[in-house]
């Protein structure tokens, strides 16, 4: 006999799996499956306390949910006869077919299907595979529960009506589709990690959900290196999350962070993943994780292996050239070889990154270190004109003030 709290724990642990299988049984009808799973949980709450918890709670829940779904499909079929609109019915031969593939893999690929809008992919993934309610997702993404609920309904309707398959993509599509899944998971992580607006507690939750999904993806696609890279990257970032801002909410740069407060256990877990993530040369997440790993394994900021980091950024650029990666590479070179070498690489990026505040900020920082304070001040001002978040603004203002003390006697180019 079990109390309601213990049953709730079972639900939390099993919900994604039960739902994933029920969706398959319902031929990809998310709405129908969700209702059926809800009903199955309600039955469990009623029956388990008196009848005892079944030996295989998940199997019990799947069976009850499936029966509820079949009842509902029959009711709909009768309704369909009345209004004579043909609707693709369930393929009853598949209802009992055992599945070799973990249904959660089907679920994650369907939620992250390219035919679904990006914001809906995120919401659907969090709602079905994650443990967040519609209200929580709405709050995390600063939108109203009504809007979020509509977004979810639209996505589920599209899956049903456009017949987006509830399948793991075939081999030829797998890499591309896995990349979409990873980008959705990383988007969820960054929403929790980088955003400065919204409920702090919920944003932490988003990071943990993303890490959980990352673990799930590694478990489901064990042969692919890049999901390991993504998981390692998220673990490494998250291990430093509490040291990134001070009590006033201001940015603390990597070099100034209190390394004793980094989550060592989490870093160790990530470091073990990195070599596996780099197997076969490493994908974008693997390389990014390797860079984060070098930062996290330096006992002091001055111990950081910048030469190795510069090499990894160069490799990233070689795979997928982008001005942002080039900027990161330039900053690493500046740390390894000195600000003059870095500046030589930063300057030519100006025509592509003129609207990007971090290009101006990086340039300003290198000019500052070269003691070209007047030019540095000018660059800080340009960065300030483009910056969006308040903590970053305060940081740049502090730097600009430091420059200000000398601008009065080197005003030739201001």
């Amino acid at each position: 006999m079990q109390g309601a709290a213990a049953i709730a724990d079972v639900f939390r642990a099993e919900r994604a799996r039960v739902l994933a299988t029920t969706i398959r049984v319902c031929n990809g009808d998310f709405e129908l499956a969700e209702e059926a799973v809800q009903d199955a949980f309600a039955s469990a709450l009623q029956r388990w306390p008196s009848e005892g918890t079944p030996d295989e709670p998940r199997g019990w829940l799947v069976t009850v949910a499936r029966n509820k779904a079949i009842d509902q499909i029959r009711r709909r079929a009768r309704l369909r006869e009345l209004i004579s609109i043909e609707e693709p019915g369930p393929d009853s031969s598949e209802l009992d077919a055992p599945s070799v593939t973990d249904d959660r893999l089907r679920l994650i690929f369907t939620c992250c299907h390219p035919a679904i809008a990006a914001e809906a992919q995120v919401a659907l993934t969090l709602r079905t595979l994650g443990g967040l309610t519609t209200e929580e997702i709405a709050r995390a993404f600063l939108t109203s529960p009504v809007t979020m609920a509509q977004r979810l309904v639209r996505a589920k309707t599209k899956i049903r009506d456009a017949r987006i398959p509830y399948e793991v993509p075939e081999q030829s599509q797998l890499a591309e589709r896995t990349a979409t899944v990873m980008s959705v998971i990383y988007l969820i992580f960054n929403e929790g990690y980088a955003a400065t607006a919204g409920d702090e507690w919920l944003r932490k939750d988003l990071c943990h959900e993303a890490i959980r999904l990352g673990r799930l993806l590694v478990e489901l696609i064990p042969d692919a290196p890049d999901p390991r890279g993504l998981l390692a990257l998220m673990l490494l970032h998250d291990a430093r999350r509490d040291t990134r801002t001070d009590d006033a909410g201001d940015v603390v740069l990597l070099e100034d962070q209190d390394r004793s407060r980094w989550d060592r256990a989490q870093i160790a877990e990530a470091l073990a993943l990195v070599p596996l993530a780099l197997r076969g040369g490493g994908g974008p997440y693997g390389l990014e994780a390797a860079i984060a790993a070098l930062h996290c394994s330096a006992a002091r900021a001055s111990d950081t292996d910048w030469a190795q980091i510069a090499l990894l950024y160069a490799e990233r650029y070689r795979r997928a050239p982008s001005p942002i990666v080039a900027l990161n590479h330039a900053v690493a070179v500046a740390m390894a070889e000195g600000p003059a070498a870095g500046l030589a690489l930063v300057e030519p990026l100006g025509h592509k990154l003129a609207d990007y505040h971090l290009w101006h900020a990086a340039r300003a920082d290198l000019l500052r270190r070269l003691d070209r304070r007047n030019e540095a001040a000018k660059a800080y001002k340009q960065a300030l004109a483009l910056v969006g978040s308040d903590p970053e603004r305060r940081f740049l203002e502090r730097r600009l003030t430091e420059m200000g003390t000398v601008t009065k006697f080197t005003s030739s180019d201001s």
Partner: protein
Amino acid sequence: MQYLLLIYDNEKARWNAPPAEREALHDEYKQLVGELVRDKIYVGGNPLQQSETASSVRVRDGKAQVTDGPFAETREQLGGYFLIEAPDMDAARKIAARMPGARNGTIEVRPILPMTM
């Protein structure tokens, strides 16, 4: 399940292309239709006359109003369509990607809502 593949592109560019280019495009479509017929995917399809030949009809307050031209002025115009039979959206999208119009235009893939009359 049936899907309508709507071909949108810059019709001026297509109609004003040199004859050899237009012929090559036509041949490409013919070949694709041949393959889709062979694979029992093709249900129907047609190219359309230019959008300036269109009339738009609305009935308001019981009166039919006719205006010259298509319903909306857009950068890309509806230039033709295929109706295909495909098991699911992924299969339909694959066919869409094989259409010559996808290279410089856009193929909108719309599931057909089945109705019994």
